[in-house]
């Protein structure tokens, strides 16, 4: 759909030199890192930005009336600007830093779920959500009398739009919370259509962009989303930093999530009043260094260009699917029309964990397990899969190594 038109191809070998860890050996072999969907490796620009801040320009933010604190506050708030530009958010105050996607979704479940939704209303999620976009809604359901509805997926791994529409028909749904790209099946969901549908029935929409934003440009205004979340460590940034974007009018109506320093306007023992957004939602000393690292990661990705990254990864995915299709007894899960660089598979002769261990011994890192998506595993009728995922630094040669590696695993177990 919007996979991006092939622009100047990526010079992958040059880019790989930006990621020091890719030169490491594992079990005496070149590292073939095909687990970026779990967490991506970091370019030198990110490492340097964080180290430089610690070495040259660091203090707490929003507090000190001194040079170091003012400069650090500028850098931290500069990261907010960088995220606002990345998402094309209309207002930089709509960017809230969290620890990760999980915390961002919990923030919405708490503050929007309890503060704005009313008991008797419903939240819709899909069958292919990460636990991060399931459990907070179950907690809301149990604590606040919100019904939880599950939108089914088709066998291809796409949202069943007709079934979703049926779930919205009684207009009880206050929020549709759906992944923008499945971390298991690789499916991109039609985010703009989902938003239109949700809005038509009076619901807001939250998109879990943890995977999606790594591979494609996201424009929250074009999507017409209400909430968008992502996590820094998958976008080549550090751990410990995530993002919630939400429309300002929603943030204004939502009560705070955590209480403490930085989020207040005044405190007395009788009562406290809240700071303006975004600070109302950023209690305590934030992840300052991590925000600076995330800004560096965004700058890095933008300099390469999403269009080139998307084209590169689309080619890798196509190549991988073609190679894997030739391996007898191998089953790939997910056949969405619009898919990104995540390929889950099982092998007839070996359990995914055994596959992962044998691939690891060849230097190839894949993930095996339920990928924090147990309900999806149920839907697929399996317990676990092995998963290879691709990043901007992945090469065709590594995909070839994966296919050859799987053939060796097959031999070993038959």
């Amino acid at each position, binding site marked *: 759909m919007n996979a991006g038109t092939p622009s100047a191809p990526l010079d992958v070998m040059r880019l790989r030199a930006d990621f020091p860890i890719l030169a490491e050996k594992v*079990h005496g072999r070149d590292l073939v890192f095909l687990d970026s969907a779990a967490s991506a490796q970091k370019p030198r620009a990110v490492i340097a930005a964080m180290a430089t801040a610690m070495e040259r320009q660091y203090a707490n933010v929003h507090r000190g009336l001194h040079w170091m604190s003012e400069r650090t506050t500028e850098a931290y708030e500069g990261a907010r600007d960088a995220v606002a530009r990345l998402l094309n958010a209309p207002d930089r105050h709509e960017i809230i830093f969290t620890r990760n996607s999980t915390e961002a979704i919990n923030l919405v479940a708490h503050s929007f779920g309890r503060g704005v939704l009313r008991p008797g209303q419903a939240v819709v999620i899909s069958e292919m959500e990460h636990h991060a976009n399931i459990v907070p809604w179950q907690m809301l359901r149990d604590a606040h009398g919100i019904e939880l509805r599950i939108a089914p997926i088709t066998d291809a791994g796409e949202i069943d739009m007709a079934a979703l529409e049926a779930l919205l028909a009684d207009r009880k749904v206050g929020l549709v919370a759906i992944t923008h790209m499945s971390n298991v099946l690789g499916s991109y969901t039609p985010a703009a259509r989902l938003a239109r549908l949700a809005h038509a029935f009076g619901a807001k929409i939250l998109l879990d962009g943890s995977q999606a934003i790594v591979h494609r440009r996201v424009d929250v205004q074009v999507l017409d989303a209400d909430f968008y979340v992502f996590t820094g460590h998958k976008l080549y940034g550090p751990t410990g930093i995530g993002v919630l974007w939400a429309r300002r009018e929603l943030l204004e109506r939502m009560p705070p999530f955590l209480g403490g320093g930085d989020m207040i306007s005044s405190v007395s023992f009788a009562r406290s009043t809240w700071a303006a957004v975004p600070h109302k939602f950023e209690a305590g000393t934030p992840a300052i260094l991590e925000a600076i690292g995330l800004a560096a990661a965004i700058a890095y990705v933008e300099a390469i260009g999403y269009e080139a990254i998307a084209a590169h990864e689309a080619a890798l995915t196509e190549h991988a699917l073609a190679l894997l299709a030739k391996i007898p007894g191998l089953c790939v899960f997910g056949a969405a029309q619009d898919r990104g660089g995540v390929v889950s598979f099982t092998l007839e002769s*070996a*359990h*995914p*964990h*055994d596959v992962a*261990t*044998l691939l690891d*011994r*060849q230097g190839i890192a894949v993930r*095996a*397990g*339920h990928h924090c998506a*147990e309900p999806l*595993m149920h839907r697929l009728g399996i*317990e*676990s899969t092995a998963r290879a995922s691709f990043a901007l630094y992945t090469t065709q040669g590594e995909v070839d190594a994966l296919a050859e590696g799987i053939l*060796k695993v097959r031999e*070993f*177990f038959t």
Partner: protein
Amino acid sequence: MFEELRDLYQEVILDHGRRPRHGEKLACFDAEARGNNPLCGDRIDLTVKYGPQGEIAKVGFAARGCAISIAAADLMAETVAGLSVTAAETLSRAFQTLARTGVPPALDPPLAERLERLAPLASVHEFPSRVKCATLPWHALHAALAGNKEASSE
């Protein structure tokens, strides 16, 4: 290329992993427990039948999991049959040490001999992420013998 993996996946393990001898729940049993590894999704449903002296007469299980976990469950079922509950618990602790360190702790001769039958699993200690595959059945056995229904490898 997989030479070093031949330690982890010895013929015995591959064989028991493929064709477990005790891989069915007992139709008639006295104790049962479920073992869960929530991180990887491995699961074992274990049933135990006691003999006239209260010893473990038979163990049968239904499991889903990797070759290591199925083989570990099957070898466990084989080695604990005929043991008193106390002896089985001693063997269980010894096996867990073996799986974590690769070194078999000293045991009295009859038990030492049984531990030796489990030696093919000793090399899991070199694969930290796989140790739990081998120990989960033993956690489940412990739960069953203690009269609990659930065990977790966490």
